[in-house]
């Protein structure tokens, strides 16, 4: 079997003295969609920030396609093909929607995604292209944030809390675009508090509790009761 596209190997990450991840391993195969679920503070976002390079692990390694990228800063990882739609969207408020997308393509990686492709994926974003990004609804902002990450033509797309603060119908619309993204061969790592949504889009689900994996398996074979127990940590 070939090496996974993303291999997070026993990383320990701490904020000062507070250890968020005591030694977590995550692997995502090429073309796979993995959902990381777990309650607030389970370490999901910490893991994503470690994968994209905003946080450095004290121990362990992050490998992309077998290459150790642990020492690479975040901006250099984009050139290797890791792009993230961060928690809270983090659009550039003084830039227009289109300018936000163009900054997303700053690394100039070749691939299927460009302005036209993103506008086709999210027609609503196309209508708003010349508006300041600050003047969009939450759902529109999230669509721009996903499109902005796609503009980097990533091999690995990291989606952090897409559903945060959005109405369920809007969340469903956004996730409806995911098959067209994975259809391009893009590997996706989703972090989501909305477990049902995560189970619906992912090939595999990994549940974290206090920085440790408590349950993992193929999305269609995970028992909901066991997942609920793992999510809240009652079965331990």
């Amino acid at each position, binding site marked *: 079997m070939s090496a996974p596209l993303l291999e997070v190997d026993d990383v320990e990450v701490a904020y000062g003295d507070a250890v968020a991840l005591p030694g977590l391993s995550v692997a995502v195969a090429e073309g796979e969609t993995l959902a990381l679920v777990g309650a607030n503070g389970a370490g999901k976002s910490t893991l994503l920030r470690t994968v*994209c*390079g*905003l946080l450095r692990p004290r121990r362990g390694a992050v490998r992309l396609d077998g290459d150790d990228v642990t020492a690479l*800063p*975040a*901006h*250099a990882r*984009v*050139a290797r093909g890791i*792009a*993230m739609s*961060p928690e809270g969207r*983090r*659009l*550039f*408020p*003084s*830039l227009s929607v289109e*300018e*936000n997308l*163009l*900054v*997303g393509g*700053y*690394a100039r990686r070749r691939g299927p995604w460009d302005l036209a492709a993103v506008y086709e994926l999210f027609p609503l974003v196309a209508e708003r292209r010349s508006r*300041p990004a*600050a003047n969009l609804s939450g759902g529109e902002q999230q669509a721009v944030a996903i499109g*902005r*990450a796609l503009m*980097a033509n990533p091999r690995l797309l990291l989606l952090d809390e897409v559903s945060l603060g959005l109405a369920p119908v809007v969340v469903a619309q956004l996730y409806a675009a995911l098959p067209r993204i994975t259809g391009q061969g893009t590997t996706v790592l989703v972090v989501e508090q909305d477990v049902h949504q995560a189970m619906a889009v992912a090939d595999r689900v990994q549940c974290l509790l206090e920085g440790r994996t408590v349950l993992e398996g193929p999305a269609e074979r995970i028992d909901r009761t066991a997942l609920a127990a793992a999510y809240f940590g009652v079965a331990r």
Partner: protein
Amino acid sequence: MSWVNAVVQGVLLGGLYALVAAGLSLVFGVMRIVNLAHGVLAVVAAYGALVLGRALGLHPFLALLLVVPAMAAIGYLLQRGLLDRALRGGELAPLLVTFGLAIVLQNVLLEAFSADNQRLSVGALGTSGVRIADGLSIGWFPLLAALTGVAVIAGLGRFLARTRTGRAMRAASDDPEAARLMGVDDRRIYAVATALALATVAVAGVFLGARSTFDPAAGATTLIFAFEAVVIGGLGSLWGTLAGGIVLGVAQGLGAAVDPAYGVLAGHLVFLAVLAVKPRGLFPSAVTA
């Protein structure tokens, strides 16, 4: 007619102030650094042109071909070597570092060139002009300085709006961490911004040095006028800086028309009035981080 003349000369002077202030505005807009060494860096550029004029006989404008790239390089290294570190030390650190730098540079200039007044000679261009009407004439040199100021502001604005690096600069100004996630090396982008700012301050310094005499301490006044232009126009807005420069120039021109001693004072009073009435400046940028 003397009032019209005062306004016209004030507008031209304002264009020069905008030229001086453009780099200050850019550095503040992108990195939120108030560069207190901005004025003395303009004086450094003027001395650079002076040395090149003496050694190689270069006209000050020709000397710009060497002084501008040299100042840009200094800006790049200054950002990477000193200001980046200062930025990590909180909001106050860059202010203290640039203040210290200003004092060091001023004293280095004093050691190297003494406190004697110097002036760059631009030949007949410095004194000739065109007469529009009785009591109203426009000097070629002030006109060239003002047009250069407008061109620099327009060029920087275009660069920020239209280019890949310019967009990355605005993105890094909004949210440096999110910019990193887009593949933008924010520290390199900051260094490019400071390099650009010092390139413009080099041009400004040579114009200032040709307009009137300068000495190693001239940076302080230069900084104050540039700072006033930026604040009057609105922090972080380049076109606001041009407007601010013109407001300041006209105020000084009108003040001087009343009594030559009142010129600078009138400028300061207008600055204070703007601060009191519209503290965010006349043209604040629509979005502030």
